[in-house]
């Protein structure tokens, strides 16, 4: 599904990704974790082609993404902060994205799920953070793509919407899709993730299941296990 080989990325003098290699076979939920500034978003943006790597290769669905844009047809991406053009109406934004992607979509169902019917004629600039995030979710999940990338999907959501989001993610997983999630909420990871990819200083520090992680760090609690990795490395 996704194969990354010795990926390097520098922003100015700041080496964000160094010799990162990752192979995601496909099917299931992968949580991309790591402390702030460990390169999670850069990794995701590299996969999406928004960040151009200095070195290394990335292929999605067995095709190199270099000088390629069509592969994004197979990816649904939820950006971290839902900042949309302010003077566009919700309805217009949805129509625009549909027009640009030219793909079958199921936005009506999702609008109902998140209760956005009354917001359709409102301008995006006037929406609250949580509502924007719901619009963001609709835009992401309305297409049927084999790869879904969610950057901090829980931001700003109320508990009821959070439950709906989880259901939605599990539903998509049931269809055999690959779902990449970054988040800082460990409870969410523990509940949802099949596998964990832990980034540290621009490289993959750990990749495996939650059980493996707890065994490795000799912790019984997931949150502590995650904390333990960070501490181990700062000691080292």
């Amino acid at each position, binding site marked *: 599904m996704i194969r990354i080989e010795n990926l390097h990325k520098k*922003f100015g003098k700041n080496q964000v990704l160094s010799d990162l290699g990752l192979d995601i076979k496909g099917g299931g939920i992968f949580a991309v974790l790591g402390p702030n500034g460990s390169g999670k978003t850069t990794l995701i*943006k590299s996969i*999406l*082609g*928004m*960040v*151009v790597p200095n070195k290394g290769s990335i292929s999605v669905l067995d095709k190199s993404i270099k000088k390629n*844009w*069509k*592969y*994004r*047809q197979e*990816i649904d*991406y939820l*950006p971290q902060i839902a*900042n*949309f*053009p302010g*003077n*566009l109406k919700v309805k217009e934004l949805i129509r*625009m*994205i549909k*027009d*640009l*992607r030219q793909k079958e979509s199921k936005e009506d169902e999702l609008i109902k799920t998140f209760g956005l019917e009354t917001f359709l004629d409102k301008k995006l600039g006037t929406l609250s953070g949580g509502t924007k995030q719901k619009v963001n979710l609709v835009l992401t999940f309305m297409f049927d793509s084999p790869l879904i990338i969610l950057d901090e999907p829980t931001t700003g959501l109320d508990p009821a919407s959070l439950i709906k989001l989880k259901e939605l993610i599990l539903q998509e997983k049931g269809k055999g899709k690959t779902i990449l999630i970054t988040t800082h909420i460990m409870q969410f990871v523990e509940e949802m993730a099949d596998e964990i990819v832990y980034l540290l200083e621009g490289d993959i520090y750990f990749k495996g299941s939650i059980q493996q992680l707890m065994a490795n760090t000799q912790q019984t609690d997931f949150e502590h296990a995650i904390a333990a990795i960070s501490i181990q490395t700062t000691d080292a």
Partner: protein
Amino acid sequence: MPLRLYQSRRQMLKILKYSFYDLMRSRWSYVYFLFYLALGFVLLFLNNDLSKAVITLMNVIIVLVPLISTIFGVMYFYNSKEFTELLLAQPLKRTSIFLGQYLGVAGSLTMSLVLGLGLPFVLYGLFKSDAIWDFSLLLITGAFLTLIFTALAFNIAISNENKIKGFGYAVLLWLFLAVIYDGLFLLSLIVFEEYPLDSFSLAATMFNPIDLSRTLILLKLDISALLGYTGAIFKSFFGTNLGLMISISMLVLWTILPIWRLAYKSKRKDF
């Protein structure tokens, strides 16, 4: 690959459409349009003469169009950052995104200019007048200046993450080409008085789209003797038709080069 080319062109037109609509909805397009509308009416009313109005208009357009295009271009680029990021995650070619946005901005500015000035002149009886060619040339030059300076503004904005810096450079660019350049040019003519300066001044004019536009219009209006050294040289060197052709090709080059660099830069930028 013709199919790929077709696809990316269709994508670009879509982006153009959305940027254009977005701008048409913003207040500034109307302000810009109404400004030219008012300017056109006032000039015609005061001058009571189409040809004279065209000359006055030229002096305004040559300074103002670059300024507005530069500021508007930079502002639009920074303000549509979110829109751009949304588009980048979609299956779209990068060059389609940026060229589409650029053409949307330049297109709406050109439309405000052409409609704003065109309306009063048409109402005044432009089609029955001899000034129609001079006036059309004025609008064409105005359109070129819009295309050139919007492209330059996009170039500055894409190379500068910092908004304040970007704005600063954009204003400096305008100031340099509209004011300082002419000053330096005149200064050099005085300093090197003793030497033959014909080819130098010719080249110097080519390298400034504002001077170039001015020369172009003056040659057409056939009053080059009235307004300065540049026009006179152009006239004696080329005769009117060749001068016109060379000036227009230079304007085309001035448009294509920044657009090319914009496409080049857009492929390599991180978001």
